[in-house]
């Protein structure tokens, strides 16, 4: 794989073209909803991410019921948002937190794999491993995850009504 192909793996180019979760979701007033607006200061690109949590049916951590996003950004940031959407919708916030941590670890790992187990959990997100070799692009890949964390925190503060 050439240097460039490590960054732009086919699955990334596909997600950048066929984006999952693009478009903000409607959240009715009653839900545990959160929204976050994030800017990548290096490039000025932006994303707005909105999500809705639902109380866990079994009394555990709330579940991320749905999310959507919109913004301007490069193929890496958009692919990352698309992959994130696939990964986190339907999981409870504790699981989502774990995934976010895995993803952050992947970005800090200079292109080295985190091992099969953790990377399997990240599904298509593991294809972003090469981004960590391009320091200027790490923020691109993390932008959506920052918005996700912020929006989740806001939704949790509001709490179930």
């Amino acid at each position, binding site marked *: 794989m050439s*240097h460039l192909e490590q960054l*732009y793996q086919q699955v990334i180019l596909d997600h950048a073209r066929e984006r999952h979760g693009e478009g903000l979701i409607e959240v009715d007033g009653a839900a545990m909803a959160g929204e976050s607006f994030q800017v990548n200061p290096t490039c*000025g*690109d932006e994303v707005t991410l909105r999500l809705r949590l639902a109380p866990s049916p079994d009394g555990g951590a709330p579940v991320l019921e749905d999310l959507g996003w919109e913004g301007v950004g490069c*193929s890496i940031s958009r692919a990352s948002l698309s992959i994130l959407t696939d990964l986190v919708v339907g999981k409870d916030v504790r699981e989502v937190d774990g995934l976010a941590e895995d993803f952050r670890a992947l970005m800090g790992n200079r292109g080295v794999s985190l091992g099969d187990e953790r990377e399997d959990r990240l599904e298509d997100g593991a294809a972003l491993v090469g981004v960590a070799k391009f320091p200027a*692009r790490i923020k*691109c890949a993390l932008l959506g995850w920052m918005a996700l964390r912020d929006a989740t925190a806001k939704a949790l503060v509001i709490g179930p009504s």
Partner: protein
Amino acid sequence: MSTTAEQATGLGAQELARVRADFPILTRQVNGKDLVYLDWGATSQKPECVIDAEQDFYLTTNAAVHRGAHALAEEATAAFEDARAVVARLVGVDDDEIVWTSNATAAINLVAYGISNATAGRGGAEAARFALAPGDELVVTELEHHANLVPWQELAARTGAVLRFIPATDEGRLDLSVLDEVVTDRARVVAVTHASNVTGAVTDLAPIVARAHAVGAIVVLDACQSVPNMPVDLHALDVDFAAFSGHKMLGPTGIGVLYGRRELLAALPPVTTGGSMVEIVTMETTTYAAPPQKFEAGTQMVAQTVGLRAAAQFLDDLGMAGVAEQERVLTQQLLDGLAAIPHVRVLGPLTATDRLGVVAFEVAGVHPHDVGQVLDADGIAVRVGHHCAQPIHRRLGVASSTRASVGIATTPQDIETFLHALAGVRAYFGVED
């Protein structure tokens, strides 16, 4: 030394090859390819003479200036002041009208904070001419780099002045049809770029300066892009202040220049205060030295002045008219080449008349950072993003762009390599034609 006639025809292939050989970094390989550096508009590369001048200073002369009784200090002071003289000459002004700063941004901020301090009553009676009253107007333009926009926003916020702006046209030039409307007799400052770092448009300054002076406003010129690429005579332009950066004109990083008309520098209150800019200091109060020292607090970037001197001399030896003509031809080549690539839109004028070789463009369907990344894989260095000029991007309907910019050592071959690589970018990302 070229005569004016020779200059008007650019440098010629042989002289260009000789100039290019002065830049050691240009022999570098990037990702296994020869470096094609088309990011001169962000920062220039350095000829060997500049690197050597700075190194020699450290090896033989380094000392604090304007202070010592010893030989090194005297030699360092002489080098420091000689640098001021050479830079002053390059832009057609007097030595004592040149203030060293750390970059152009700092130079513009110096003027803005000087006005702020005058408004706060500092600087005595002479400074009162700068004091702002609420409702006074500061005029900028939609083409400005953030460096010549945000300091004026902040000055307005600190003082109650009102910010107004001259809008840009679809072509990326200033819309001077509204000049008299925007620059009213409440205008106190008109801050304008000499050339846009996005659209490359060279500003028609004469009517702006005339209008500003007619209503009693001072003109602050952002000369960052012009000084490295064309002849600039600040006295002839009749501007009141001007700012430019060493690193963009073949000089070192860490040095910028503020030009100020002599009587304005004398009247403007100091901004950064400390050593070497005072006369008498008691615990209670301080009197200040004359300009330029008044604005040069603390130990200055002496080695960098020596490097910048070498850069200014290098440019002067080539002749700025010749440099400009050289780059004009390359710019036209670049514009023509971009026009021939489908789905590429240039932001800015499409011909190289009154236009510098900073050429920003949009590739439909591909984000600039992705464009830049693919070019980088071929060893081609361009800039991506908003180039610290978000408003003009917004005005032209994009969030960001890719920008190729030529410099003194750019060759026609560089541009061919770039155009060839660019033509393949959309296919790489599988964007349909």
